[in-house]
């Protein structure tokens, strides 16, 4: 998973991460990766939501994943081996009452079982070293081959035998501050040169003995405590060893679950959906471009081909998307967000080609449908949510906004959005905003800022929507009234006027649509300016 760091599943996704999953429709992608296995789902979620920020590490993981996708069968065998090793946690119960002696017994038994799994792992490494050739696998096999050689495994087994204390227990100690025995440790009688008698201190050294009476229960208990103090350190060492080996297998299992999950996702996607390993560059350059980017979530939900879009937003700080309702704007926004997350997780993306910079977190601010009922507090809620996101932002973050601040009138919403988006873009955050706030889009357009890109969802002359986005300046109205007419069979008379623009847009919307949308835009703007 990483050239130098272990992969770990962190805590549960927070409120913000949960929003990202919901807003981007990531659930379908994660489900496809999990194949219904909750462990796989947890790994996939953690990996996708906590991507890497080092292009080198991303390339390293991409290479391992290429290996795995070429031979998923072998990876599955290795995964099953790790799962079998971890069975030890179920077979040997960790003592509930943790006296050092019981902990020691548990540790010795667990280690005995884990040694068998380590031997199997070694055999697998010997058999498959040639087939899986990425840097990640080469490194893994090298470690297994060198560190777990037979001599080492035999030595461990021999030590586990000796922990039975058949010849009594020899404890070393010194005096603590109050003359109580301190620093008790189990000692190895010094070397084989000594006779049994010498080892037990019966030889040259002076010693004093006493014996606990067989019926002296308190004395026997006290003796047990003395031995417990003695083995405490050893029990700790053995237990840590168990934890280390278990941790090793857990790490292996987790990492392989991610790669197997990626293989599942690839298998579940329709053949027509393009996929490629993206080029990920460091955060100090601003790249965001490629060909035929699709929304994998949509592809999985439809279980068939989906429309892809090309994008050239290299060097752009703010991308504003306007245009036809149901024209594919939200889907496009999701596809960019998902591609960013997958790219930083070291995965393939659903595009013919894709280049992006490492970004410090992907954040979503989507209008919440469920909030429409609570008119009063909705803008408040939106502002609160945006404020929560801003708390987490850093230069280099990516914010995906879908119809933000549409819960108030256009004048207010545009002004809030303008201030928020331009401030974020100016501080190094990449903002992708889908909006129908014309005052916002038009105002930004008039500024002629080369770091702002305008896209528009295409609407054909006959009203069909090909779900494509083209580079085009914003138009003063969306096509909602038309959809309304189609749905209801009547014109939406009495529909709310467009904020501060007064009656002008109303009038304009009544004009027949121009054949060329771009021309129509400029024509309307001229008209607008001419309105007294």
């Amino acid at each position: 998973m990483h050239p130098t760091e272990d992969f770990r599943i962190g805590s549960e996704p927070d409120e913000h991460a949960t929003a990202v999953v919901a807003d981007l429709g990531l659930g379908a992608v994660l489900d496809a990766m999990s194949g219904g296995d909750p462990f796989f789902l947890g790994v996939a979620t953690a990996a996708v939501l906590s991507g890497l920020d080092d292009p080198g590490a991303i390339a390293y993981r991409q290479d391992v994943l290429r290996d795995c996708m070429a031979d998923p069968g072998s990876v599955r065998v290795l995964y099953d081996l790790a799962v079998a090793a971890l069975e030890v946690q179920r077979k040997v119960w960790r003592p509930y009452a943790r006296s050092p002696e019981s902990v020691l017994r548990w540790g010795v038994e667990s280690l005995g079982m884990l040694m068998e799994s380590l031997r199997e792992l070694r055999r697998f490494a010997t058999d498959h070293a040639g087939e899986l050739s990425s840097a990640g696998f080469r490194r893994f096999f090298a470690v297994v081959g060198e560190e777990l050689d037979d001599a080492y495994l035999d030595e461990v087994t021999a030590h586990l035998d000796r922990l039975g204390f058949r010849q009594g227990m020899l404890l070393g100690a010194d005096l603590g501050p109050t003359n109580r025995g301190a620093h008790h440790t189990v000692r190895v009688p010094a070397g084989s040169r000594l006779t049994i008698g010498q080892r037990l201190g019966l030889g040259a050294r002076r010693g004093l003995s006493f014996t606990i009476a067989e019926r002296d229960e308190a004395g026997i208990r006290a003796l047990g405590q003395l031995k417990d103090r003695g083995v405490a350190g050893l029990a700790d060492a053995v237990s840590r060893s168990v934890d280390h080996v278990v941790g090793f297998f857990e790490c292996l299992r987790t990492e392989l679950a991610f790669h197997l999950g990626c293989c599942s996702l690839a298998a579940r996607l329709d053949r027509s959906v393009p996929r490629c390993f993206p080029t990920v560059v460091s955060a100090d350059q601003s790249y965001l471009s490629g060909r035929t980017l699709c929304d994998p979530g949509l592809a999985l939900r439809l279980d068939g081909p989906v429309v892809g879009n090309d994008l050239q937003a290299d060097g752009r700080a703010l991308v504003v998307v306007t245009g036809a309702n149901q024209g594919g704007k939200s889907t496009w926004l999701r596809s960019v967000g998902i591609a960013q997350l997958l790219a930083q997780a070291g995965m393939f993306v659903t595009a013919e080609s894709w280049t992006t910079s490492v970004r410090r977190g992907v954040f979503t601010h989507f209008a919440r449908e469920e909030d429409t009922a609570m008119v009063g507090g909705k803008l408040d809620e939106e502002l609160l949510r945006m404020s929560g996101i801003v708390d987490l932002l850093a230069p280099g973050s990516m914010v995906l906004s879908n119809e933000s601040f549409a819960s108030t009138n256009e004048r207010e919403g545009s002004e809030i959005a303008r201030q928020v988006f331009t401030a974020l873009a100016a501080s190094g955050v990449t903002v992708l905003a889908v909006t129908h706030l014309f005052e916002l889009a038009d105002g930004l357009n008039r500024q002629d800022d080369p770091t702002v890109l305008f896209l528009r969802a295409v609407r054909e002359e006959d009203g069909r929507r090909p779900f494509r986005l083209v580079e085009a300046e914003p138009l003063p109205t969306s096509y909602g009234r038309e959809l309304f007419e189609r749905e209801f069979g009547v014109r939406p008379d009495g529909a709310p006027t467009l904020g501060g623009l007064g009656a002008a847009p109303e009038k304009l919307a009544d004009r027949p649509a121009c054949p060329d949308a771009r021309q129509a835009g400029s024509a309307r703007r001229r008209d607008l300016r001419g309105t007294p």
Partner: protein
Amino acid sequence: MTFHSILDPPGGTEPVGHAAQPDHFVDLGLDHVVAAITAGREDYDLQSLFWSPLGRVSHVRYRQEVFADLADERVLGAVRSFSAAVVTMRRQLDQARSQPEHHHSRAWFLCAAESYCGAVRALTDALASAPIVSAGLVGLRGFLGEHVAGPTFTALDAERTAARAALRSVRYCVHVQGLRVRVSSHAGEEDYGETMIALFERFAGAPAEDHRVAATDRSFMDRVEAAVLERLARLFPDAFGALDAFCDRWATFPDPTLIAFERDVQFYLGVLDYLLPIRTGGLPVCLPDVSDVATETTAVDAYDIALAHHLVATGAMVVTNDVHFGPGEQLLVVTGPNHGGKTTFARTVGQLHDLAALGCPVPARAASLGLVDRVFTHFVHQENLAEQRGGLADDLARVHAILRSATSRSVVVVNELFSSTTAADAALLGSAVIDRLLRSGAIGVYVTFLDELASLGGPVVSLVAEVDRHDVAARTFRVERRQADGRAYAIALAAHHGLTADRLRQRLTS
């Protein structure tokens, strides 16, 4: 230089004035202040110190100087460490007395001597280079310098070091087989736990869970431990002999002057601990300029210390106010809306004088105060309101008692006097009381609803608890010096509801 006590200068211990809490402490909230200061220091019996105001300005300055020195973090840290070590020493001596096993008990005694010697040395070293100027701490430094260089402490320190070194050299082995235990000296056997850790360290990576079972802290040795220890004493007679000799010779080692210092300095530590959250909350604290005869009583940015201590814990803002008695001014009459900060202001004035007379810092940015002989308070007690006539009689009796005792060095704080009678009566009685109060020469604060009392003039100054001009529902808790004008508040409240004359005209004509 001789050192007497950190609380009072040589040659004059202040007599403990009150064996019980003064009557006015509850009204001023000082009961809570003292309880919080002494909490956790019950063993030192400090309360009576706070009930005993100092009678001489020189004694106040003696304590103020110590407080000023303790403002230096290093000095304060050194004193805190010393106190903590002495507390540890006491616990260790308790153990030495209660442990039945001889060698175990004696080791506890050695621990106590170690704590003590370490504490004395550390304090001596810290004070030697510390920027202290107070007579109290400079005197202590002189005492410590002589004491530590003296033959008694030198010998104690050397002998406890030697005794410990001998015990530290003891290394032994215990072999347990069945029920037989053999104790012997150690001969370099290898630690098996280390062998195991070395063997498995190649799997290291994840920080493993700590499996070490917590050592149970049993206060008494079990019989196996005792038996092992008894045999060790025979195997290592030199080490254990040195311990016995040390204990016999130094049975009563702590110096009484230093032990008394450790108790007395709790007064300072308690006050500073109490002030810490208040200071952290951004509120000013100062050592007031205290004089025998106050020509002018002033406090800048003063506040109720008990309220502030409570509020900073909740993160709420604390409003400060200036207190000022100009030349010839004796009584501040405070009027204004309910819950506008009138009573808080009155309490503040009382607290300033009480704390100043203890030599403590006061809740203000800067203050110049007279040393008062007594603070008197008369606050409305809820139970008095139940029975009106009894209430009025009781009010009069209590006020009379105050007027009889008040002197030109007293502070009198009166809150809502005669609230149990009619306004006209209250105004009349109030004027009469104020007249007598002025004649006693005391200074004071008089909280009332009655504007008449605020406009008596002369030595009587009118203060008003302000409301926010824009939002009358919001209190500012600021108390300003200006003419009482009860109607201004009502007009503002009316405006808030659109009910002023102008607004009503507008509303009615539109």
